[in-house]
């Protein structure tokens, strides 16, 4: 931004904040320094339109209206900024609250959200709050937004729009067009989801952003309001989760091998299988499905003894891999 433009915009904001009357564009042109540079009315209009857009994009509540006088309304629209809508309310944070805010602003690894959080911190500081970001944090959570569909979906949520996109499901493998009215974009354990009303299924559904193929297109207004009682995070967290049920397993581990299994196991006794020396051990397994691929991965270094269902599952994997 040129110096002249920045100066003009600051003066415009100060001028509109200081007036109770709506000021017409002509009045503004006459008063605010900088607009005098416009050689003609057309050039001024272009300049002024651009300035208004910029102020609105920054969230400045630029009001439009007409003053009433003895002889009725003004003939043209004027502008002003209501101070009560412009100013951030009083805020005072205790040191522990300010520390939490400083850490929160650093959570994002995201082009959209990092800038917004920084903008918020600048304003809080301007309101007199001391937010110290120079001292390194001991614990630092980080959240990324790398999916290209993040921005368009968030915008659709905020503007109350319905969207359509291609969605790839791995099992059963299919690529289908989905039409949803999104209620929110949710990050759960580092993965992003969109939750909303699925128009085809006529029910709430959640979709993983990494499985969206191509563009997200807006197709009009959302009609199904977000239910008041829905907790988006719980909805995502409980959808499609393998229930955690632990099971004990007995396995044989070759001597000096499979440290990953041994560190979680209790040795029951040594045992020789074939001509290989090893130990029989006992361990607790969570998520039996993923346990089968984890154990199969060790190949001849680990043999499952029981339960039978796990032994079979590992055996079948190895049979397939041997082909």
């Amino acid at each position, binding site marked *: 931004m040129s110096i002249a433009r920045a100066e003009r915009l600051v003066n415009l904001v100060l001028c509109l904040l200081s007036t109770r009357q709506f000021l017409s564009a002509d009045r503004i042109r006459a008063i605010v320094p900088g607009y005098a540079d416009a050689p003609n009315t057309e050039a001024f209009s272009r300049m002024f339109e651009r300035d208004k857009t910029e102020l609105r994009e920054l969230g400045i509540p630029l009001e439009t209206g007409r003053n009433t006088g003895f002889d009725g309304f003004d003939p043209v629209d004027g502008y002003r900024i209501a101070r009560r809508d412009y*100013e951030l309310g009083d805020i005072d944070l205790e040191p522990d609250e300010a520390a939490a805010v400083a850490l929160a602003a650093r959570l994002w690894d995201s082009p959209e959200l990092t800038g917004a959080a920084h903008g918020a911190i600048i304003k809080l500081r301007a309101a007199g709050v001391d937010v110290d970001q120079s001292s390194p944090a001991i614990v630092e959570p980080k959240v990324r937004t790398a999916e290209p569909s993040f921005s368009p979906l968030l915008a659709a949520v*905020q503007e109350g729009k319905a969207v359509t996109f291609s969605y790839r499901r791995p099992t059963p*493998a299919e690529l289908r067009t989905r039409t949803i009215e999104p209620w929110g974009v949710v990050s759960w354990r580092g993965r992003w989801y969109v939750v909303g009303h699925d128009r085809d299924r006529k029910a709430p559904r959640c979709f993983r952003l990494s499985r969206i193929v191509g563009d997200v297109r807006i197709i009009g207004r959302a009609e199904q309001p977000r239910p008041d009682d829905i907790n*988006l995070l719980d909805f995502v967290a409980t959808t499609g989760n393998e229930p955690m049920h632990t099971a004990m397993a007995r396995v044989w581990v070759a001597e000096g091998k499979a440290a990953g299994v041994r560190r979680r196991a209790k040795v029951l006794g040594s045992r020789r299988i074939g001509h290989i020396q090893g130990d029989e051990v006992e361990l607790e397994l969570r998520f039996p499905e993923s346990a089968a*691929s984890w154990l199969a991965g060790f190949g001849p270094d680990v*043999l499952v003894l029981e339960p039978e269902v796990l032994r079979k599952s590992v055996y079948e994997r190895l049979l*397939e891999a041997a082909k």
Partner: protein
Amino acid sequence: MSDRLPRLLALVPYLLARPGIRVEDAAADFGVTEKQLRKDLELLWMCGLPGYGPGDLIDLSFEGDTITVAFDAGMSRPLRLTGAEATALLVALRALGETPGVVDGEAVRRAVAKIEAAAGLAQPAGVVVGLGVREGEDTAEVRRIVQNALTARKALRITYYTASKDQITERTVDPMRLLIVEGRSYLEAWCRRADAVRLFRLDRIDEVTQLDERAAPPPYAEPTDVSSGLFTPQPDQLVATLVLEPDARWLAEYYPVESVEELEGGRVRVRMRYADRAWMVRLLLGQGGEVHVESPTDLAEQLRTRARQALELAGNLAST
């Protein structure tokens, strides 16, 4: 859009709240150079109320290296937060509040309430974040010890399981911070054994003891940049071409893969980088017939050999 205008609008109220602040400190708070901040101040000096006479312009008084606002021209408070700004901050705060051991949950709740009140935000945010850290009892205990060491700036002795090498090692490390990324907690530390900065997953630290020695990461120990994910592909890594059946597609979502080619029947061909051969063999062997190795051929051969050896050994078992 340039971020200069928001800064210019925030500067006067900021200075007003801190009479006599040093230029250097103000510049640091705004994240700009001192030179830039002085330019901003010079510009503001030219701005003011209609009339634009000496009594109408913003007046700043400089004393040595400090600034004080003498006249604010009616700009005494910052602009309210935009929806995006309030969302970015509040969503992050809530995520912190729900994660064990990060910050005082009570302080977070108070901060959220105050910011909501000041920002006047009514509608629910369009973004929700749950860090979702799963933490067993043992890991919670490890975390407490690690956090204590970070606060006390003490070195740690750890017994660590390196999954890529399937190896357990003892290391002395100088803790730097605790990172929470993608639902998992990591200790970032200078590893004296590796002579480099390393991330240690807390649930793979089997034993941990705080030492009397001070933590002393060398000055050139840089924090890990996780902005593009935890796995950064290195040019010297090995690369395999794999065809994934639908049931194994999660591999492409979980590990960074280059070039994805969709095939018939929901299968997909990917190129995947890996640092350690033995790790790759374990990963792929566990997928059974759901992954086909197209190259390198010796990786494919090794997988078959390992599977056959395992079956042969299991045969022994059946006969005993």
